[in-house]
């Protein structure tokens, strides 16, 4: 872009400009912007509280717009984690923040469900997957303890305005192919951290056709691309979902036609096959059709990437009236208590439990080896809906982790081999939205 020539703004530039009280901002510039909501997880709470304490006991005006979420150590696996939770409960009670306790769910699910954000908002959280809020046309990004202390003291924070890449997802996903498959394909194309510092605007027919659950997956997984934000245009589905969850009035934010992007891509997803990240590398991506006889022993549906109702529905559609393959273990971890309850009311928990799966309480427990809620055995291959698969992620370096959609995970749990969901009965179930 030539210096001095005014062009339009991307979604992220508009949100940051509005929150910084400026007419416009440009990629690369640093702005001090007002924040709408902040979130602190239990993995970062000790450091965050330590930083806030450096300011003494000044009242925290921003506490009402902050939630502490006890999700990573949920339920606490040891005394140290339990002590962190005790400290968080005491802090929330003393300083007036919100609190989501163990079993309430994963931060990135409970924040939107709790009505804490809406279109056009600027939301920060102490977790890389805070980019998930982009599904609601909010700028969501990950920060750390000192950042939170600044927000709680001043309601503001500094941001470097990111460059934006616009990705137009054209065509209609085939039944049995999901947002997860698109994000894995993006990781194959750009590589892990391939869009470091960038914001991504995902637009196009395929995005418009997605239900909110799938849109959240699309934005969530952009964290593995290194993205600072992944953001969608809002539509009637967005507004209806936000209204149903008690969010404040949205401020829908769209990019200008002459906005400057580092890259504009058009990708036709109509012929996309289910994708997989092979063991250890989140960007070692192959189509399911390229995999021959890969046995699995453990299956996981859950995490902030794919622990939502539509994911559990995909699994139930495939496993209804059937049994897991001999020797296969399967755990389902709903992303929140609300999702757990919805799955219960729909009969999904009965279907999956009858098939041989187990349910774990809502939270991050089975995603990462800090609670050890899911530890595979030596030589096991895990097929998971999580967003990360590096060696040892689940506390056993002698196990392999592959990543795929909930449909792919369920189809694989049914046969005992990594399986194209489109090849099994019920594997082409589609969301009503």
């Amino acid at each position, binding site marked *: 872009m030539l210096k001095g020539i005014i062009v339009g703004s991307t979604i992220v530039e508009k949100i940051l400009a509005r929150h910084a009280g400026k007419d416009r901002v440009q990629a690369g*510039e640093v702005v001090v912007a007002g924040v709408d909501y902040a979130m602190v997880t239990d993995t970062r709470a000790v*450091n965050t509280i330590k*930083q806030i304490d450096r300011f003494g006991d000044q009242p925290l005006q921003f506490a009402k717009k902050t939630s502490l979420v006890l999700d990573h150590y949920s339920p606490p696996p040891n005394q*140290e984690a339990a002590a962190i939770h005790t400290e968080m409960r005491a802090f929330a009670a003393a300083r007036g923040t919100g609190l989501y306790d163990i079993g309430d769910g994963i931060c990135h699910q409970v924040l939107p469900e709790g009505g804490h954000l809406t279109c056009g908002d600027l939301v920060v959280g102490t977790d890389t997957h805070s980019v998930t809020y982009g599904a609601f046309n909010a700028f969501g990004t990950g920060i*750390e303890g*000192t*950042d939170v202390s*600044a927000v709680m003291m001043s309601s503001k924070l500094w941001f470097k305005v990111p460059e934006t890449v616009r990705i137009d997802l054209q065509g209609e996903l085939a039944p049995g192919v999901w947002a997860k498959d698109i994000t894995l394909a993006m990781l194959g194309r750009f590589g892990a951290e391939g869009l470091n510092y960038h914001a991504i605007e995902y637009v196009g027919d395929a995005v418009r056709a997605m239900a909110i659950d799938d849109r959240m997956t699309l934005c969530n997984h952009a964290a593995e691309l290194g993205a600072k934000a992944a953001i969608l245009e809002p539509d009637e589905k967005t507004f209806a979902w936000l209204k149903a969850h008690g969010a404040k009035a949205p401020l829908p934010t769209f990019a200008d036609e002459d906005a400057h992007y580092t890259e504009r891509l058009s990708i036709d997803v109509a012929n996309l096959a289910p994708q997989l990240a092979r063991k250890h590398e989140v960007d070692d991506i192959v189509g399911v059709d390229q995999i021959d006889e890969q046995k699995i022993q453990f299956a996981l549906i859950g995490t902030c990437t794919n622990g939502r109702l539509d994911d559990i529905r995909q699994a139930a559609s495939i496993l209804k009236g059937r049994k897991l393959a001999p020797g296969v273990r399967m755990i389902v971890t709903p992303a929140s208590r609300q999702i757990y309850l919805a799955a219960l009311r729909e009969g999904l928990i009965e279907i999956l439990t009858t098939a041989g799966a187990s349910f774990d309480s809502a939270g991050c427990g089975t995603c990462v080896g800090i609670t050890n809620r899911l530890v595979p055995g030596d030589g096991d291959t895990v097929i998971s809906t999580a967003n990360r698969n590096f060696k040892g992620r689940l506390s056993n370096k002698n196990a392999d982790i592959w990543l795929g959609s909930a449909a792919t995970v369920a189809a694989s749990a049914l046969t005992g081999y990594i399986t194209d969901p489109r090849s099994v009965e019920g594997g082409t179930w589609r969301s009503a939205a």
Partner: protein
Amino acid sequence: MSERLVITGSAFLLGDDVNTDLNCSNKYLPGKDIDYVAQHAFEQIAPGLAGRITKEGGGLLVAGKHFGINSSREQAAHVLQKMNVRAIVAQSFGRQFFRNAINNGLPVFECDTTEITEGQSLELDLAAGTLCCHGQVLQQTHPLPTEILAILSMGGLVPFLQKYPDWEFA
């Protein structure tokens, strides 16, 4: 203000993709004290580095691409300060590490580091955006804006906000 923005010392070299687990492994967290973690920093990729920096009374880390990627834990910056690392010069940084360093008053400088060799004496001028290395002047890839220089010159975001509670420094 300006004295914190000129930093001198020897170069201690690291490669590309140095992630935060390498200087601040999660196996030492929570609960281990930061001195212990600092003694073990980078031991997988540069054995003895912590001891060598201590022996010189401090220095500048020089790395390739993506310094500080992976986990966003802020302790990764605290550990480097404990090791007397005065600044980090790299071709690029992981996003959250970049924030954490600045928020803690630890200068970060992006430039082409391919010509810098181990032990060379460096002079970093953050306000000017230059790095002097054996008579050669390297330019910063993306200059740090005045807001960031102000935070660094105050020693980090907390002291900065204690002085300017409403960010009124501009």
